[in-house]
């Protein structure tokens, strides 16, 4: 229990655990939508584009997460709009917002007079410096995710599985595409505090990749992604505290380890099952 006692003692560690739980809920849900609809590259673009907003906020002396939020939501909507109009190939558009956002951020950070504090934590995340504002934002993001993906699950599944048939059923396809993309952008930005612009995408893809090994439905992937994201984050934070390594990277390393172990487990089980059925045929 000595490993866990600091987490009861220090407020910043309690905040870290709480924020990991909230981010796990938000990213587990949004990420399942992202992975099942193959929007991983788009989400990566949105998270990098948000760095432009962080740089601009530093330059103007504003709250950086606010700038990130505006840039992320606008770029997500822009890519959706351009893709719908076929004005430009969708993946090219993502490449543009990805690099343009980073370039904008770098220029503004360079132009900001004096030392820019916390720059590294926006790039790579730091769960140990999460404050109450961040917690409220994460709480809001997970509440919105629960509302959208649990309450309106049938609508989300219809849209994600077959957009054209959803149109035939006269569902508000365009509106939902924009709304869910904006929700993914909000989820990304609120998680940047934990994992950073560069690493946040793994919160939306790694737990889902693990869940995808053994689930057959989108609802199953969502449930298990939340569980795995929360548990993996706890393990990552404990590891990060005791080994004194960056929290974001440590959590992602834990996710990857979990993926390997579970994949291996199911491979062995399948192999054993096949061997057994062979034996049955022989005897």
């Amino acid at each position, binding site marked *: 229990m000595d490993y866990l006692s600091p987490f009861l003692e220090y407020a910043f560690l309690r905040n870290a655990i709480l924020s990991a739980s909230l981010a796990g809920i938000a990213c587990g849900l949004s990420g399942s939508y992202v992975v*099942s609809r*193959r929007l991983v590259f788009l989400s990566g673009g949105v998270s990098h584009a948000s760095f432009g907003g962080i740089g601009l906020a530093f330059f103007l002396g504003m709250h950086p997460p606010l700038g990130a939020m505006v840039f992320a939501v606008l770029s997500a909507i822009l890519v959706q709009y351009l893709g719908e109009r076929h004005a430009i190939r969708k993946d090219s558009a993502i490449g543009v917002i990805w690099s343009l956002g980073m370039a904008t951020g770098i220029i503004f950070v360079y132009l900001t007079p004096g030392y820019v504090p916390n720059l590294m934590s926006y790039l790579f995340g730091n769960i140990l410096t999460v404050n109450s504002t961040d917690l409220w934002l994460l709480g809001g993001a997970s509440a919105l995710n629960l509302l959208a993906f649990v309450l*309106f699950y*049938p*609508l989300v*599944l*219809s849209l*994600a*599985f*077959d957009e*054209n*048939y*959803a*149109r*035939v*059923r*006269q*569902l*508000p396809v365009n509106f939902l595409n924009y709304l869910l993309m904006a929700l993914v952008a909000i989820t990304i930005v609120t998680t940047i505090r934990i994992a950073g612009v560069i690493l946040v995408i793994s919160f939306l893809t790694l737990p889902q990749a693990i869940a*995808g090994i053994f*689930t*057959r*439905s*989108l609802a*199953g*992937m969502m449930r298990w992604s939340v569980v795995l994201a929360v548990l993996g984050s706890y393990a990552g934070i404990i590891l990060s505290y005791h080994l004194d390594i960056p929290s974001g990277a440590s959590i992602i390393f834990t996710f990857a380890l979990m993926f390997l172990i579970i994949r291996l487990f199911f491979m062995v089980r399948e192999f054993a099952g096949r061997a057994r059925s062979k034996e049955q045929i022989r005897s």
Partner: protein
Amino acid sequence: MELIKLHGLSAGYESKPVLKGITLDVHQGDFIGVIGPNGGGKTTLLKVILGLLPPWSGSLWYAQDLTHKGHKRIGYLPQDPGLDMQFPVRVKDVVLTGLMQRNRSLFWQGKESKAMQALTRVGMQEWATRSFGSLSGGQRQKVLLARAIADRPALLILDEPDTFTDQRFEQDLYSLLRELNEEMAIIMVSHDLGMISSHVKTIACVNGGLHYHHSNLISQEMLEAYECPIDIITHGHLPHRVLGEH
């Protein structure tokens, strides 16, 4: 009783017209086979009827019976739905998406039995909890047909349902369609004229314009007169006519 009336209707994409001034009435109990060359406008016609493509001019009328409280009671089996086979979804859930309706019924409570009925109808009830991506091509087609009929539509639209499937599936499909035709009108696009002429009641030839033929016999003269150049392929003991060289 009429379900749909198209009159002098034109439609197309951007600046390219595809359908020019077509007229068609669909009645209750109809089984219309739609034939015509590629690019002639068969799929465009289906899209207009489904409400996916707004017509440029002319009129498009739906019977009250077909637009129940603002919701069109039309089932649809697309030709190539372009679905992601790795999408995590169970067979039963695919059919449940066919029961979604705008502004109402956004939830699935109490709908499972309807979905299971549709699956039983196509003979796929035992696969209900399987993953959709693990099915064979013919089985997937059956599940998508169950999705199309789950909400008991007044009109069923099929776009080349026999493209990616084997003969065994075709036989099942056509006997099922005959059964369904007792309850709903059917419009079916097909390349297989042999199949068309032995199962449908009437034929519409679409090639820019639309020519309606009040029987299911296809003759070379008819195809030529209607400028509907397609090859006639038949097999098996089907009602057909062999024409001389010309």
